[in-house]
């Protein structure tokens, strides 16, 4: 399938209020397509791998912009771009983890238009699925990546269920680590979902990576003050330093008192369909010093239960080493 020069014909709506956007989204149901920065959208449409009758451009909705302080932390509007997150003074001061993660997404031009909501709700990047093949995730009944000849170097090492694609988001694991809350609006009102429950694996729903359904709009991301000014560690390993999605990324938040880790949340990206929390590691390091010997004592705890495919065994030591670097406190 070739990439076409122009986009297929569609109508375009540019609502300026959330209620109007929800109304249009409900009118078109699964034939409508919400657009923030559009960087996950246009490839699908140009390739004719997915289609829509109407694009609903949300960027005119002022109430979904800006970073606000709240009683318990901050609220980031869904339309805040990744570049804005890297430059925001409050985020840089209290949650530099998120600024670092946002700053490692794709390329400067993509960060200039790509939004925080788009980064967490983007679809998986499995090239078989992206090519428009009728795989499990596309509603079919086979997986092209999990076969003896399948190119699955970038795919899952945990919790595959028919589909072996991984979460491509760099900010998703950071938000799970920070215990962020996702604010979702639809025609019947507003609901708030913990970042950890926002992402959905193929065992629960093979055609969606999040809890968002047609008619739902992710309008804001709230970050509680619980982990503000904690100790953080972020690292993303990718084939290239620009554009590429993570092979493995790690986002860690730690409360360290007198050198001792009192509490932590360690979350890994690109090893399964959702950000993976390393609860066993968190428990093992509680009460221990943040230093080399603690890092070494963890061994392969993070990757012990991995179930790698033909070409992605390398993700296991990669993940273990990122955990060690996070725990000893330097790269």
């Amino acid at each position, binding site marked *: 399938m070739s*990439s076409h*020069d*122009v*986009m*297929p*014909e*569609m*109508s*375009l*709506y*540019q609502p300026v209020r959330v209620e109007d956007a929800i109304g*249009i989204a409900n009118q078109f149901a699964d034939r409508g397509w919400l657009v923030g920065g*559009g*960087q996950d959208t*246009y*490839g699908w*449409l*140009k390739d004719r791998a997915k289609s829509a009758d*109407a*694009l609903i*451009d949300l*960027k005119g909705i002022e109430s979904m912009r800006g970073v606000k302080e709240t009683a318990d932390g901050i609220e980031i509007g869904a339309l805040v771009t990744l*570049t804005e997150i890297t430059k925001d003074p409050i985020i840089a001061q209290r949650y530099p983890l998120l600024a670092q993660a946002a700053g490692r997404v*794709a*390329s*400067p*031009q*993509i960060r*200039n*238009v790509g939004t925080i909501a788009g980064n967490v709700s983007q679809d998986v990047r499995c090239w078989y699925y992206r090519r428009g093949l009728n795989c499990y995730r596309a509603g079919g009944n086979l997986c092209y990546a999990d076969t003896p000849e399948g190119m699955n170097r970038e795919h899952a090492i945990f919790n595959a269920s028919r589909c072996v694609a991984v979460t491509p988001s760099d900010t998703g694991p950071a938000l799970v680590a920070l215990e962020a809350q996702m604010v979702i609006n639809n025609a019947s009102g507003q609901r708030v979902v913990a970042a950890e429950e926002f992402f959905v694996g193929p065992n629960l729903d093979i055609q969606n990576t999040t809890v968002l359904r047609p008619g739902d709009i992710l309008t804001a991301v709230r970050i509680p003050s619980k982990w503000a000014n904690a100790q953080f560690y972020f690292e993303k390993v990718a084939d290239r*330093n*620009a*554009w590429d999605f993570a092979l493995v990324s790690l986002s860690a938040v730690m409360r360290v008192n007198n050198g001792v880790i009192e509490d932590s949340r360690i979350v890994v990206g690109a090893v399964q369909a959702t950000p993976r929390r390393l609860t066993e590691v968190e428990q093992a390091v509680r009460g221990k010093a943040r230093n080399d010997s603690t890092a070494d004592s963890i061994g392969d705890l993070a990757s012990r239960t991995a179930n790698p495919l033909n070409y992605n065994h390398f993700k296991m030591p990669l993940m273990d080493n990122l955990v060690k670097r996070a725990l000893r406190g330097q790269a």
Partner: protein
Amino acid sequence: MNPKLTRRRFIKGVIASSAAAASTSLWYSAIGADRPAGAVERLLSLNVNGQTRRVDVAPQETLAHTLRYKLGLTGTKLGCNRGECGACTVLADDVNIYACSTLTHEVSKKAVMTVEGLRAADGTLHPVQAAFVQELSPACGFCTSGQVMSAVALLKSNPRPTREEARQAMSGNLCRCGAYDHYLNGVMRASGQLS
């Protein structure tokens, strides 16, 4: 064949004639008739390079398509047409973006700047362009207009970047000739940090 009929002139001629044909096309008016209420108006007043250009833009049309094939601004190149090379980089309100991965309607209220808009009225090159010439930055030149626009965006927000900051800022523009260091030299010269 007319020896003066260059490829560029031929393309511009096609753009002019198709724009004239489009204004009376039944196909366009038929699309308009069954458009659902509330959808965007096709006729835009687009601010490009400081001028207001009236242009008929399909709802799904990309900015790169409008610039090249409706407005004749072929300095903006299409490399991959999917946000993975940077050749189509233009500025929207002084921020560098991929024109291939932006709908024209998304920037209808912004000031768009392409490589054609950098030169002064008297023909003097923009400092970035002049520095790229002096440092022999381009090799084949296909990525150059995108590289220029990214450098211009960088120097607008950070007039004296370090070489590392410049490297980061230019990382969204691929150069298949591998002239990255030459472009970086150009950026440092344009910012007055090379003599």
